[in-house]
């Protein structure tokens, strides 16, 4: 790290929603934790950031109490951060998003009211008539909104986060894709499983365990379905799912599954869903379920 004796300078480079992007975030996290003085974040090399990646970046920057100053904010990557509001807490005015393709960066700090705040957030940003958002079928919009709620409620219940939950999204009209990330600053999947199920497993195995329909819930209420159904929804939609927790990176896409390790631990967990907004299917089983036989 460069900088003076009083400040440590850290340079951000391009961040995309892939293994390399999360590798950069874990290395950034390590540098921030190691810094003993104020930190200067140099954005001159940041030519691009996938807007949704502001959510996990928010988790990384929330660590520690050192003073942070952001400098050299002229690149396009910074433009994305100004339009989605990521830089507002640092004193930068939110820029108008003329195309309406950003979905606001939001830090849900108080998990006690997080549920109701997130309800308002989803209601505000994901309405059928929302400017800039694609015209999705009602069935797709419903499944997408429900997936976001499932992920957020899971984060509230299972992450043990003490720094809240972070959310951000980005729509890509040309590619007809919508990416959304929800990141928590919690204990990660593996530690949660160990704490509640007394099972010890590797970080990648913990993600697979959670996506397979298992639950960390105890007591009188069942659980464990949400993430499994989200993965099924993404599969039907031919979208993409990326899950990061501790040192594990998991990605599902129509091309296949990637399970990779990260060089350092991510300080929490991140779920990113990418949907194909042009999808027209009904998301109903071909054999209809009868309400009369449901129990």
């Amino acid at each position, binding site marked *: 790290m460069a900088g003076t004796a009083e400040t440590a300078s850290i340079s951000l480079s391009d961040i995309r929603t892939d293994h390399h992007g999360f590798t950069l975030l874990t290395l950034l996290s390590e540098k921030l934790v190691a810094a003993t003085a104020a930190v200067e974040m140099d954005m001159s090399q940041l030519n691009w950031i996938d807007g949704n990646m502001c959510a996990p970046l928010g988790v990384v920057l929330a660590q520690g109490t050192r003073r942070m100053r952001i400098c050299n904010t002229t690149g396009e990557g910074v433009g994305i951060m100004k339009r989605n509001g990521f830089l507002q807490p640092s004193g930068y005015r939110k820029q108008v998003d003329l195309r309406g393709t950003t979905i606001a960066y939001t830090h849900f700090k108080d998990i006690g009211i997080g549920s109701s705040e997130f309800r308002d957030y989803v209601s505000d940003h994901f309405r059928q008539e929302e400017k800039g958002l694609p015209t999705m079928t009602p069935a797709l919009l419903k*499944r997408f909104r429900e997936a976001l*709620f499932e992920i957020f409620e899971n984060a509230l219940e299972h992450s043990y986060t003490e720094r809240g939950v972070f959310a951000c999204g980005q729509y890509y009209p040309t590619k007809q894709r919508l990416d959304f990330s929800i990141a928590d600053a919690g204990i990660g999947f593996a530690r949660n499983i160990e704490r509640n199920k007394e099972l010890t497993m590797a970080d990648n195995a913990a993600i697979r365990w959670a996506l397979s*329909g298992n639950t960390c*819930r105890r007591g009188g*209420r*069942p*659980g464990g379905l949400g993430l499994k*159904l989200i993965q099924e929804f993404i599969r039907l939609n031919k979208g993409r799912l990326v899950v990061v927790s501790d040192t594990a990176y998991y990605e599902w896409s129509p091309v296949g599954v990637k399970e990779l390790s990260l060089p350092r631990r991510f300080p929490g967990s991140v779920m990113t869903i990418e949907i194909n907004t042009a999808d027209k299917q009904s998301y109903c089983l071909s054999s*209809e379920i009868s*309400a009369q036989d449901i129990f």
Partner: protein
Amino acid sequence: MSEQITIGIVNIVGDGICVSSDDGEKVYETVLSILKLGNGVLISFAGVEDLTTVFLNAAIGQLYGQFSEEEIRARLSVIDASSQDLETLKHCIDRAKEYFKDADRFVSSANKVLGVDDDNNS
């Protein structure tokens, strides 16, 4: 004589966004109190816009820990649910049945290890 009481999920939650475990718990408490009085419950999904497994596990899944599958089948029913919501509900009900069956097996196994007789349940 028992009667069937109709409850609307949206009336209990306050709007059509039925997603949190806390709101599911409110529905559960209402259904539970009616069932404990010996009545049947007709759960209306009219007006539901968003529905999660988190909500349903709390609202309905928990009931399988209090009543047998036969009792629930006899005294609980649903109306006004969309195809998508019925599908989600079915997943949660099937999961609840597995979960509480597994819970029984866990208790039984634990009792065996501890040397407790299951029949005496002591």
